[in-house]
C-alpha cells in the first residue's frame, strides 16, 4: 500500500482499541523473569560454548604480538579468534568502527581477541592469559584542542546538511539591537541500557542464526552479511526482547561479530555478552560537542538572526553529531546560519543515542533562548511563543503538518504554575535551598519509514501478526496488537504478535523514533489486505464489510471472523510505502518541558523537585506506553543535565568512568515528581495511523530546562554540561 495523500476516516478512527491506555502485553513475562533476552535462549541452543571479548589495552597503535601459549592450554579453552586468524573483515553500512582490531588499534577497548571456552569463567580466565604487546602511537583525544582545525563535515548520503545559509546571517546579526553569542559544551554520553550487548551465535552449515539484541534487524542482517562476507539470506537474527537500547544497539557491533566468528572457530554455538566495563569504550556513544550560538533580536523579542555552529569528533569516516538540526526548524527568523564541523578523534565511535543531534543541540539552544529572554527582559515562555512559526523557516511555504508548540508552552505554563516564577534569579529560598524554575521547548523530527507485516487468520478467529519490528522495552508488542485488533474488529486477546525475527517481513526497527508510527502502519496495510481476503472468503462485499466484536457484518448477515478461515488459514502480507508528503510538509513532534529544582546553598547539590512535559505527537496509540516513553526520556534528560559524562582521559585516551559506578544515571531518589500531558493531535499527513513518534521527543530540551531552572534558582549560568556542584559552589552565597 502506498500512502500518498493525507489520510481520511479509516477503521483506526473507531478507537475501540487504539488510543486506550492498555498495559503492556509482555509485562507479566518481564516481571516474572520469563521474557527471554538474547543471552537467555537456553532451550533453543544446546551445548553452547562461551566467548569472552578482549579489548585493546591501548588507545591507538598496533598489536606487535599476541602470545597465546598459555591461554591456548588453559582449562576448557576451545578456540581463540583474532584478526590474524580470521583475516580482514569488511565494514558494515552504518558503523565505521572495525569490530575486530588488528594489527592496527583505533581506540581503547576495541576488540582484539575472542576467547572461547566451555564455561564463561574459563573463557574469562584464559582471556587474561593472552599476552598482547603493543606499539603505541600518539592519538588525538581532546575535542577542544582539535576544534580549530576541524573541517566542515563531509556530506553523508542521508546525513544532516553540514551547512545551511538563509538570508544574510552575518549582516543581520551584526546590526541586531540585542545580541547573544555564547558557547556551550556537552560531554560524551553512554546509553547505559540494562541489557549489555549480547549474542548467541549458531551455525548450521552455511546458515547462521543469532539470538541478539539489535534494534534494527534488517540493518543487522545486512551488516553481519557484509562484515562476514556471507549472503544475507544465510542469516537469521532473532531478538524477541531487547533490554533497552536507546540507539546503542542499532546494528551489528562487536558482540555479534565476535560470537559468530567464535562459533565458527569452535564448531559450536557460542554465547557472548560484553562485560559492562567494556561497553563504554568498545561500542558507540553520543559524542561530545562544542556549540556556539548567536542570536540577534529586536527589543520586542523578534529573532532576526540565528546562527548555530557545532563541533564534534569521531573516528575517521564516522558521522557528525547533527546538533544544529532543531535550530533549523524551531524558531522563526529571516537570517539563518548553521554549520557542523567534525574533528578526527581516536576515541570509540560516536553515533546515535536517543534523539541524536536534537537532544544534544537543544541542550545548548534552549539555554541560549533563556539567556536571550533575560537580555530582552521578556518571559522565556513568551519569547518562545513570539518566535513560533507555522512553516519551515528555511523553506517558506512548506508548512508543518501539525505544530502546537504554542499550546504546549501555554498549557504547561498554566499547569505548572509558571506565573509563580520570579524573573530575578536567586530570590526564592526555602531553608537551605534556593528554588528555581526553567522551561524549554522540545522538537523532534517525526520520520516515517516503509514497513511490512504479515497477518494470519485461523478458523478460531485468532489473528497472528509477524514483522521483524523489535520491542526494546517501548511497547511495540502492545501497540501492534492494538492495531491489528482495531483493524480486524476483535479484542486484543484474539491477536498474537510475533516480533524480532529477521525472517519476518521487514520493518525499519526501533530507531529514530520512527518505530511505532511506521510498524503499526505496516500492520495496517497488511490488515487491509486481510480484510479483503476475509470479505472475499465470506462472500461479503468488501465495501460493506464491517469488522466488529469478532464478527464480520455485511449484506444483512453476520459471520464469526474465524469462519473466513474455515477451509484454510488466510494469510496477507503488505508493506506500507510513502509518497512525497514528508517533503511537502515538515513533520515533527513538539513539546514543552517545565522543571523546578532546588539548589542547596551550602553544598551546591541540585535536586529536581518536579517536572512537567506537555507534548503532541500525532495520535497517541497508547497513552500509557507513550507516557512511559516520555517519563523515561525526561529522566534521561535529568541525567544529561546533572550527572552523565563519559570522562575523557586525554593522556591515556579513553573514557575513564566506564562502568555504572563511575557513570552515574539518575536513580529513583532523583526523580520525585513527573507529570505528562499529551495534547490531542491527529496528523493525517503521516499515515493512516495519523501518529508520530514520541520515544525521543521526551528527552529533547529537558536538560536545558533543568539548566535554566538552576540559573533561576542561583543566578549562576553553567554552559558546560553536566551541571555538577563543583561548577556552582565558588559562586554560591550561603543562605544561612
Amino acid at each position, binding site marked *: 500500500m502506498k500512502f500518498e495523500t493525507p489520510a481520511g476516516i479509516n477503521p483506526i478512527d473507531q478507537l475501540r482499541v487504539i488510543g486506550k491506555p492498555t498495559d503492556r502485553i509482555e509485562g507479566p513475562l518481564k516481571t516474572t523473569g520469563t521474557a527471554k533476552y538474547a543471552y537467555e535462549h537456553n532451550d533453543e541452543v544446546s551445548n553452547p560454548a562461551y566467548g569472552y571479548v578482549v579489548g585493546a589495552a*591501548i588507545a591507538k597503535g598496533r598489536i606487535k604480538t599476541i602470545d597465546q601459549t598459555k591461554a591456548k592450554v588453559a582449562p576448557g579453552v576451545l578456540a581463540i579468534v583474532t584478526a590474524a586468524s580470521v583475516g580482514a573483515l569488511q565494514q558494515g553500512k552504518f558503523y565505521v568502527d572495525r569490530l575486530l582490531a588488528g594489527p592496527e588499534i583505533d581506540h581503547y577497548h576495541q576488540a582484539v581477541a575472542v576467547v572461547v571456552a566451555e564455561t564463561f569463567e574459563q573463557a574469562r580466565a584464559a582471556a587474561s592469559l593472552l599476552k598482547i604487546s603493543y606499539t603505541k602511537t600518539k592519538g588525538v583525544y581532546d575535542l577542544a584542542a582539535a576544534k580549530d582545525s576541524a573541517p566542515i563535515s563531509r556530506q553523508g548520503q542521508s546525513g544532516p546538511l553540514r551547512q545551511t545559509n538563509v538570508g544574510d546571517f552575518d549582516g543581520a546579526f551584526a546590526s541586531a539591537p540585542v545580541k547573544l553569542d555564547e558557547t556551550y559544551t556537552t560531554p560524551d554520553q553512554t546509553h547505559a541500557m540494562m541489557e549489555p550487548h549480547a549474542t548467541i551465535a549458531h551455525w548450521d552449515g552455511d546458515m547462521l542464526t543469532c539470538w541478539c539484541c539489535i534494534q534494527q534487524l534488517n540493518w543487522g542482517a545486512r551488516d553481519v552479511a557484509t562484515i562476514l562476507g556471507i549472503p544475507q539470506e544465510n542469516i537469521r537474527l532473532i531478538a524477541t526482547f531487547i533490554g533497552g537500547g536507546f540507539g546503542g544497539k542499532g546494528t551489528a557491533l562487536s558482540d555479534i561479530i565476535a560470537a559468530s566468528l567464535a562459533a565458527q572457530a569452535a564448531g559450536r554455538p557460542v554465547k557472548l555478552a560484553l562485560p559492562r566495563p567494556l561497553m563504554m569504550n568498545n561500542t558507540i556513544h553520543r559524542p561530545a560537542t562544542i556549540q556556539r550560538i548567536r542570536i540577534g533580536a529586536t527589543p520586542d523579542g523578534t529573532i532576526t538572526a540565528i546562527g548555530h555552529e557545532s563541533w564534534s569528533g569521531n573516528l575517521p569516516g564516522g558521522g557528525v553529531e547533527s546538533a544544529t538540526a532543531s535550530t533549523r526548524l524551531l524558531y522563526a527568523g529571516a537570517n539563518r546560519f548553521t554549520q557542523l564541523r567534525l574533528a578526527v578523534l581516536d576515541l570509540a565511535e560516536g553515533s546515535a543515542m536517543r534523539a541524536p543531534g536534537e537532544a544534544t543541540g537543544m541542550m545548548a539552544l534552549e539555554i541560549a533562548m533563556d539567556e536571550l529572554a533575560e537580555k530582552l527582559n521578556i518571559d522565556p515562555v513568551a519569547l518562545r511563543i513570539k518566535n513560533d512559526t507555522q512553516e519551515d523557516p528555511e523553506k517558506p511555504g512548506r508548512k508543518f503538518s501539525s505544530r502546537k508548540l504554542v499550546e504546549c508552552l501555554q498549557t504547561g505554563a498554566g499547569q505548572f504554575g509558571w506565573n509563580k516564577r520570579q524573573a530575578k534569579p536567586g530570590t526564592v529560598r526555602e531553608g537551605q535551598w534556593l528554588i528555581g524554575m526553567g522551561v524549554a521547548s522540545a522538537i523532534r523530527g517525526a520520520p516515517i519509514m516503509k514497513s511490512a507485516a504479515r497477518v494470519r487468520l485461523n478458523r478460531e478467529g485468532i489473528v497472528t501478526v509477524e514483522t521483524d519490528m523489535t520491542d526494546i522495552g517501548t511497547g511495540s508488542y502492545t501497540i501492534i496488537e492494538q492495531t491489528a485488533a482495531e483493524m480486524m474488529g476483535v479484542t486484543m486477546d484474539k491477536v498474537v504478535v510475533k516480533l524480532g525475527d529477521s525472517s519476518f517481513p521487514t520493518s525499519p526497527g526501533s530507531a529514530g523514533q520512527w518505530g511505532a508510527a511506521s510498524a503499526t502502519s505496516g500492520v495496517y496495510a497488511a490488515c487491509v489486505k486481510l480484510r479483503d481476503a476475509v470479505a472475499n472468503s465470506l462472500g461479503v462485499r468488501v465495501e460493506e464489510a464491517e469488522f466488529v466484536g469478532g464478527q464480520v457484518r455485511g449484506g444483512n448477515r453476520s459471520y464469526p471472523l474465524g469462519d473466513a478461515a474455515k477451509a484454510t488459514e488466510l494469510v496477507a502480507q503488505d508493506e506500507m510505502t510513502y509518497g512525497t508528503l514528508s517533503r511537502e510538509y515538515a513533520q515533527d513532534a513538539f513539546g514543552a518541558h517545565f522543571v523546578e529544582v532546588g539548589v*542547596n546553598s*551550602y553544598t551546591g547539590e541540585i535536586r529536581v523537585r518536579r517536572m512537567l512535559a506537555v507534548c503532541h505527537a500525532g495520535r497517541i496509540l497508547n497513552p500509557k506506553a507513550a507516557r512511559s516513553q516520555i517519563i523515561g526520556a525526561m529522566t534521561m534528560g535529568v541525567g544529561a543535565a546533572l550527572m552523565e559524562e563519559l570522562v575523557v582521559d586525554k593522556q591515556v585516551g579513553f573514557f*575513564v568512568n566506564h562502568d555504572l559506578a563511575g557513570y*552515574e544515571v539518575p*536513580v529513583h531518589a532523583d526523580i520525585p515528581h513527573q507529570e505528562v500531558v499529551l495534547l490531542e493531535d491527529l496528523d493525517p499527513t503521516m499515515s493512516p495511523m495519523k501518529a508520530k513518534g514520541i520515544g525521543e521527543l521526551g528527552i529533547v530540551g529537558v536538560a536545558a530546562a533543568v539548566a535554566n531552572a538552576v540559573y533561576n534558582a542561583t543566578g549562576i549560568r553553567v554552559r558546560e554540561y553536566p551541571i*555538577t556542584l*563543583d561548577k556552582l559552589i565558588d559562586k554560591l552565597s550561603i543562605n*544561612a
Partner: protein
Amino acid sequence: MKTFTYERASIPAEATAAAARTPGAKFLAGGTNLLDLMKLEIEAPQHIIDIGKIGLNKIESTPAGGLHIGALVTNTDLAAHPIVRRDYGLLARALLAGASGQLRNKATTAGNLLQRTRCPYFYDTNQLCNKRVPGSGCAAIAGFSRQLGIIGTSTSCIATYPGDMAVAMRALDATVETVKANGAKRTLSLDQLYRLPGQTPHLETTLEKNELITSIVLPPPVGGVHIYHKVRDRSSYAFALVSVGAILKKDGTGRVAVGGIAPRPWRIESAEPLLPSGAKAFTAQLLKGARPTKENEFKLALVERTLTAVLNEAKH
C-alpha cells in the same frame, strides 16, 4: 577470574589457622566487594576462607556501657538495631547513606571497614596503578581525579577510602578487635588500622594476613546532635564526594570526621576545639597540608560548606 580453592570455617580459630596455613588466602564475608574485585582480576586470591558461618554476628552492650558489634553483623541489622538507633544515630545514618538495601543486607561490619578504594584507574587493569601493581605508577594523579583524595595522599597514590560507616565509627572512637592464628588479640583504633599510602599504597591496613577482625567496640554513647551529611552527584547509590559525620553539642563543641577526601576517614582531634569558632577556622586546621589536584580542589570549599550546613543544622 583466577581459579581458587574454597573452604568454609566454622569458628574464628579455624579461619585464622587456615589463613596462616595457606598462602594467598582471603577471608570472604558478605563478598560484595571482594567478589567484584576478583571478577575484574584486581584481586586474585588463591584460597577463599568463607567466614560467613563463624558466628560473630551479635550486637551486645558492654559492661562499660558501650556496644560490642560482631564483625559479621550485617549493615542492615546494625543500622536497624534499637540501641544503635537510639544512642549512635550517626552510625545508623552513615550506614543507611551507603550502597543500597540489597548490598547492606549482605555487607558486614568488618567487610565494610575493609572495602577498597573506588579510584577508576584501580578498577581498570590496563591502567597504571601503584595500589594494584606496586611500583607501576599512578594514572590518576595526572588523570581524572575529581573523586579522589586531597589530604593524607602521597605522590604514589591519591585514592580515598570510599566508605561511609567508617566515618561514623571514627567520630565515635570505635576500636577494632582482632585475633591472629596464634591466638594473639589486638585492639586498634581506626587510625591504627588504616595506613596512609606513602610509597606503599598497596598496604592499606596494619592487619596481618592471618589476622581476623572479630568485633568493633563502641565506647559509651556521646550526647549531642548526630548528623551524617553525605554530598554526592545524585541523591542515592553513589559514593561521597565529601561526607561529614558529626556529633555536636548545643554549645558548639563536638567531634567531626570527614569522608571522601583521604585514604582513611579524616579526623584531627586537635582541631576540634576550634569547632565553636565555626567551620572556617576548624576546616583550615583539619585540611592543613591538603594537596588537591586541579580537578578536586573544590573539595576544600565543599568540606567547609558542608560543615557549615552541619553546624547550622545542629543549632536548630
